[in-house]
């Protein structure tokens, strides 16, 4: 069965989900008064001033029947207008500005989680019930139970407070003051680690890495634990299967049996979980950025929530939902790639 057809089908199924997502956010919006809702549509701070507010409400049909409002809102959202936040800045613009910081954190964490978790799960399964396995299980279950924010605080207290190795924030002050502001450093991608290389200023890259160590560790810890557990149990399951026995009976070396036969099958449940892992990353980013004072998407959402900045929170939520939808799609496709049986559906 064709991989391509499967992808197309999945894309089509996406539409009702996106519809539902937008409906849900819209429903939450409806609980606010038209004055508050106006902020979700406005593009210009002037529109929200008392003398202009009624005109704004008129323009966006905020007193009209629900379905009309929904239509207008969808239109606005898909043209990139997520409204103005409490500080009168365009939500969409702020999100775009802050995105690179979050991307940097999330991507590095993601890589570590996936590679680390798969590797450790394999090791734990291979040496089942022996020292590496026990150590892994203890770590995994602690990781799963640990509050992310607490871990972050503890790490920060020691590694920053006591020994000052890994400070919070994204980059040190000298980077901003001496390099970026005077124009000596162009931010091509917004990711300091990459930009450092692109600018030929590796000290900036190093500085960014130093600031990334603790946040990445904190963010990865919980998800790593999840992946390790799943990988371990699915590896144990796979290793007990007949085709593994047959492969051994064929005379295939054990390392190849583990790698080629068992692991590829064991990755299937892991692929299923990776959707959750990404969701966990998105969740975790909110907390991690807050703890380590990194001005990214998560920190924006957290402070917006505390300050009752509805538009910002809702804009952020919407973006997240879309991200997750796309991620699930990618995961499903990857799934179909790994396991040929799925394509039959």
């Amino acid at each position: 069965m064709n991989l391509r057809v499967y992808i197309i089908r999945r894309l089509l199924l996406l539409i009702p989900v996106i519809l539902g997502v937008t409906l849900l956010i819209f429903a939450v919006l409806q609980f606010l008064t038209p004055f508050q809702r106006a902020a979700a549509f406005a593009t210009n701070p002037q529109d929200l001033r008392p003398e202009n507010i009624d005109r704004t409400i008129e323009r966006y049909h905020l007193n009209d029947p629900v379905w009309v409002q929904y239509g207008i809102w969808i239109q606005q959202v898909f043209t990139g207008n997520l409204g103005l936040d409490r500080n009168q800045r365009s939500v969409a613009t702020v999100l775009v500005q802050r995105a690179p910081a979050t991307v940097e954190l999330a991507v590095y964490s993601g890589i570590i989680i996936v590679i680390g978790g798969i590797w450790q799960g394999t090791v734990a399964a291979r040496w089942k019930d022996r020292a590496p396995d026990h150590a892994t299980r203890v770590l995994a279950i602690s990781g799963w139970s640990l509050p992310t924010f607490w871990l972050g605080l503890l790490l920060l207290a020691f590694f920053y407070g006591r020994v000052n190795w890994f400070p919070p924030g994204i980059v040190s002050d000298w980077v901003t003051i001496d390099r970026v502001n005077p124009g000596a450093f162009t931010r091509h991608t917004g990711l300091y680690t990459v930009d450092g290389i692109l600018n030929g200023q590796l000290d900036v890259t190093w500085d960014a890495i130093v600031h990334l160590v603790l946040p990445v560790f904190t963010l990865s810890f919980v998800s790593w634990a999840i992946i390790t557990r799943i990988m371990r149990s699915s590896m144990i399951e796979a290793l007990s299967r007949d085709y593994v026995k047959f492969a051994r009976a064929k005379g295939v070396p054990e390392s190849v049996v583990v790698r080629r036969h068992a692991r590829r099958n064991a990755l299937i449940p892991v692929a299923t979980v990776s959707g959750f892992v990404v969701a966990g990353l998105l969740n975790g980013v909110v907390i991690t950025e807050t703890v380590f004072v990194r001005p990214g998407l998560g920190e924006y959402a957290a402070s917006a929530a505390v300050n009752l900045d509805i538009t910002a929170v809702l804009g952020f939520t919407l973006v997240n939902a879309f991200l997750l939808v796309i991620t699930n799609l990618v995961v499903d496709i990857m799934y179909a790639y790994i396991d040929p049986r799925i394509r039959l559906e």
Partner: protein
Amino acid sequence: MQPRIREAKFGLNRMKQNPLSIVGLAITLGFVVIALAAPLLAPSPCGRPEVVSCNPNDPFVMPNYGYETEPLPPSADHPFGTTPGRPGRYDIYYGVVWGTRNAFRVGIVVVGLALLIGILLGLVAGYYGGILDEIIMRIVDVFLTFPSLILAIAIVAAFGQNLGNIMIAVAIVWWPSYVRLVRGDVLAAREEGYVQSVRALGASDARIMVRHILPNAVYPILILASMDIGSVVLVVAALSFLGLGVGSNYADWGGLVNFTRDLIVGQAGGDPLAYWYTYVYPGLFIFLFVLGWNLLGDALRDVLDPRVRRR
């Protein structure tokens, strides 16, 4: 009833074999004791001269010992120390003890609520199937598309920051997974012989669902769901930590940790480790609580999993 007792005994036996599950059980029981004995362990000190403000009617409001910025280290008066004075010096020991009770309250209510909705919708979806099933499952999918914490934040931000809203928000985030589980079990049970025969006898749909399918399908899910109490507390703690919680003087673990954020990040070189007690104790309680539930849940899951039981 007999086979159930036998199964339970077998299950208990297996649990005894696993040392981690015993640890989990011990931890959880310990917390239960703390929660129940809260009034004894941390009686309300209202009326004492050092207490600046206090609410004798609501023990969950922590007594305030002053507004000086510097937190007090652990001492005889304050076994776990106090929080920094902004917004108020609260006794951490008092906070974590009553926080235990709060945690149980929140956990049970949220899981209970989520279960209620989940079971209802799951039963209906599984039993009636067809278009109703499709609709419900699509709704579930939509909810599951949101990262849980973020959706909870959105709901709390929109509706207002109080304990009730937090519990509702987390319940809203939680119920979709239960629907899936219940629906699966109901689908399986629906085809069983006994359901067909009762239907042939003319029993109404509601009666079948409640009296026949529900007990069988839902029993394991109840147990699994109660294990979610730990995870729920974790989410609520995160929300409180972010500042979306109840109000800073409420006995809530996450809220207690929130106090110390500035302490740590604010000064480099001003040794935040000196104030370790402000964040270590509350966080430790959260960690142990969740750990206990997770260990217990793991053990129970092992026991209930038919494939593993064969040994």
